[in-house]
């Protein structure tokens, strides 16, 4: 009997040893269960979702823009197969079924093209349209299309397709694209290659927000599609893009195959297999084991060094335009008091947040909201941390701590508020904890309340419609890159009228800012626009419709031995068709 029990004990010991040996390889899971929706929606107009495995690596080696560090690994030329990891499922990847703004829209646009294409600096360049002329009044866009472009099924691409696309999106509400085209009153074709779009009002950001964003559909395929959300297409989606989607298995994988006849030349990767993971921990394990060659999701700051030490894995880094913000309901006391808002902004040590939570891999937020890397950034806007001044502001405004418990009172009530933050986003949660500690230094108590993604959205943005009001005191919020990338969107963030201020979740109202914001939406002259955006930033920093904390940088892990020709698009990252085209074919 003893021999048996000894053997058992030995086996058990062995098991323990094996397990502990395994665990030393350190598999940090930054991710928590964020739900399906919690998939990095870096989409035009959604809160920058929880579950965003945010960002990246120490700044000291930040190679901005295209990180092309060749270390003798395989360079360009063609790669037979590349495997990329994404988190979550993106449906059948048609313009009506893709799920998230990032990476969903990016993958959609591998199959489709838009009239213009953003270059690595984030500036729209001619693409399907080889020339784009805007009339002086900003109401008419005359375009000449590239000759000889064909759809994946061999049919020729013509001006009729463009006209059809505009009409189709306007007739079948599809969210992003229908809304972007909402300003178009008429689309007409002139011969096979001429297209004219007429707008109801000048829209300076039209090339960026619409011409570079909307996928052009083939009329001969879509003219019979009546229910685009549930329509099941036979065979691959038909576009003009560099890839066709040959296979899709939900929650498993996509298989995209290069289109050899692509009008900008054949793509550099012949077969792109996109593997779907349930969470980012799985994706990280897979790139470390060599099962995938690139992760199409941002890498969390603490992962960067770890991954960088692994064999041929490299990190592409650059500025992203997503944001971490402190939101409040500015329509009710005490947040309707400018002194309170200013005190909160002064209380926050943004550099501390960047260093502590993001390990340096983020850009300190500007009180004027516009990212310092933006061409329209107003360098005169100062963002300061000053506890003394913050406390003085609050004292002078009559918020005193009469009972000596360290919490000030507003109208006899202690200044103690719930700070909502989504549970699926650990970086945001840590940011919230630090912000709460900083606010405590000026006598404002913020109780961090970590709730599920949908609950959080419902409190801050009920029904995704500001007309429904809002239901919170303090909240961590964040917008995805496109909101920052298009500076004129600032109007929708601050304008007090619901029609214009469709993203004004803080219920902010200020006549002077309304005026400037509105002027900005219709001003066509670049110099004047920059001036207006500069003015708006000064007003923003003073009146604080919300407190801008920081902008996480982007970091993507890839195996340089497989492919290292990634193009880092400023504010968008590496997931785009630019990364998969010959350098000469990029805009």
């Amino acid at each position: 009997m003893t021999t048996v029990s000894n053997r058992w004990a030995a086996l058990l010991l062995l098991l323990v040893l094996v397990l502990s040996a395994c665990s030393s390889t350190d598999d940090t899971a930054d991710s928590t269960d964020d739900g399906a929706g919690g998939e990095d929606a870096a989409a035009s107009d959604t809160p920058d979702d929880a579950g965003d495995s945010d960002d990246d690596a120490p700044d000291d080696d930040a190679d901005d823009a295209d990180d092309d560090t060749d270390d003798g690994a395989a360079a360009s030329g063609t790669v037979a197969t590349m495997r990329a990891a994404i988190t979550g499922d993106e449906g059948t990847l048609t313009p009506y079924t893709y799920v998230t703004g990032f990476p969903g829209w990016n993958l959609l646009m591998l199959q489709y093209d838009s009239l213009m294409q953003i270059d690595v600096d984030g500036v729209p360049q001619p693409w399907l349209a080889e020339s784009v002329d805007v009339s002086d009044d900003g109401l008419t866009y005359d375009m000449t299309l590239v000759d000889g472009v064909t759809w994946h099924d061999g049919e020729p691409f013509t001006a009729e397709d463009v006209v059809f696309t505009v009409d189709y999106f306007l007739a079948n509400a599809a969210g992003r694209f229908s809304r972007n085209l909402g300003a178009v009153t008429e689309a007409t074709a002139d011969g096979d290659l001429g297209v004219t779009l007429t707008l109801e009002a000048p829209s300076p950001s039209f090339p960026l927000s619409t011409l570079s964003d909307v996928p052009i559909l083939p009329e001969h395929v879509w003219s019979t599609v009546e229910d685009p959300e549930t329509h099941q297409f036979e065979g691959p989606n038909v576009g003009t893009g560099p890839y066709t989607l040959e296979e899709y298995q939900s929650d498993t994988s996509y298989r995209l195959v290069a289109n050899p006849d692509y009008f900008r030349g054949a793509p550099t990767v012949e077969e792109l297999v996109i593997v779907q993971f349930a969470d980012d921990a799985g994706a990280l394990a897979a790139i470390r084991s060599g099962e995938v060659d690139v992760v199409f999701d941002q890498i969390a700051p603490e992962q960067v060094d770890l991954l960088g030490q692994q064999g041929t894995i490299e990190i592409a880094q650059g500025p992203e335009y997503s944001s971490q913000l402190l939101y409040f309901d500015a329509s009710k006391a005490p947040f309707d008091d400018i002194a309170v808002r200013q005190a909160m902004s002064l209380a926050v040590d943004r550099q501390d947040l960047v260093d502590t939570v993001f390990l340096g891999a983020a850009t300190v937020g500007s009180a004027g909201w516009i990212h310092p890397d933006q061409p329209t950034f107003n360098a005169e806007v100062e963002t300061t941390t000053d506890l003394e001044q913050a406390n003085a502001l609050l004292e002078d405004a009559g918020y005193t701590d009469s009972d000596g418990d360290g919490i000030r009172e507003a109208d006899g009530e202690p200044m103690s508020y719930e700070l909502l933050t989504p549970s699926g986003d650990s970086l945001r949660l840590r940011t919230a904890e630090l912000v709460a500690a900083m606010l405590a230094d000026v006598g404002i108590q913020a109780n961090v309340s970590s709730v599920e993604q949908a609950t959080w959205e419902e409190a801050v943005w009920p029904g995704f419609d500001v007309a429904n009001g809002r239901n919170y005191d303090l909240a961590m919020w964040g917008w995805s890159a496109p909101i920052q990338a298009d500076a004129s969107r600032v109007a929708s963030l601050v304008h007090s009228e619901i029609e214009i201020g469709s993203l004004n979740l803080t219920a902010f109202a200020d006549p002077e800012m309304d005026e400037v914001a509105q002027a900005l939406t219709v001003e066509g002259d670049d110099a004047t626009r920059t001036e207006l955006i500069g003015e708006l930033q000064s007003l923003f920093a003073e009146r604080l419709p919300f407190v801008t904390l920081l902008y996480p940088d982007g970091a993507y892990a890839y195996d340089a031995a497989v492919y290292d020709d990634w193009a880092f698009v400023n504010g968008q990252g590496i997931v785009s068709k630019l990364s998969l085209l010959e350098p000469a074919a990029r805009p």
Partner: protein
Amino acid sequence: MGRFDTRRIGQYGLVLVIAVTLNFLLPRLMPGNPLALIAGVDVGLLSPDQRAELVQEFGLDTPVWQQYLRYWQDLLSLDLGYSYRSGQAILGMLLERLPWTLLLTGSALLISGVIGIVAGAVSAWRRGSALDLTLLTSMIGLESMPAFWLGMLLISGFAVSLGVLPSFGAETAVSGLEGWDRLVDIAEHAVLPVLTLSIVSTPGVYMTMRYSMLEVLGEDFIRTGRAKGATERRLLFRHVARNALAPVLTVLALRLGYAFGGTVVIETVFSYPGLGRLVFEAVGGRDYPVMQAAFLVFTFAVLAANLLAELVYPLLDPRTRASA
């Protein structure tokens, strides 16, 4: 038997109706808004008109009782509708996922069942010995291990460090493998998740078996058997184990029901395309139709497993047979 049928079937029917109703209500009581899914994430970009159009299209603007009636109609005609997320027909999605889930949970059920029963029997038979204590403590240790942590440990060891097993998925994506090779590939992918699931579910079976055996060992007929000079082995297998199995098999039958539900944690850690993950994604995104269809499958499976357990128990344990 006849009397059992009518009364029981009535009971099961009632439970089913209640379950289906709850199934309809629960997702609607959750906070959050399915619009985000229907319109894609850019819902904030929709104009109020466009938003209203979508709400109408998906019948979200009708009174709840109308939605409820429509729900029953669709159910009875086996129309499970379409996913808000991907626009795919849900029935097809479920049928696509079910085999994977059953492969995972079924294998783990078998493995944990066999190991649990054998170890439990041995443990009880040698009650109080060093072997029993070793088994007992290690089982308690295993039971307290969180499944996701164990799964990540195994991934980190076998996939990342050693590189001997795949870390995710049910098979190599777009492998082009066929026939035998594909089977091998699927088996390789199943090793870690099945192992994880087996490890965390064995202790439950073991505990039940051990306890049940100890009960039986204390009974009179065992003493009688010993007195009659039956061999240890014969006693253990013919008399004790057989009688002790009834409660264990009941536990396993119920687990079979839950097996249809997949296992959210394991399927998430290993990115395995089973039902559990489908539900996980659907819940996160308020994909009502998918949630409802999946929960319905679980409800049926659990009820069926209950029924099975009820029918099987008398066959195992003569004492519970109805006196005809």
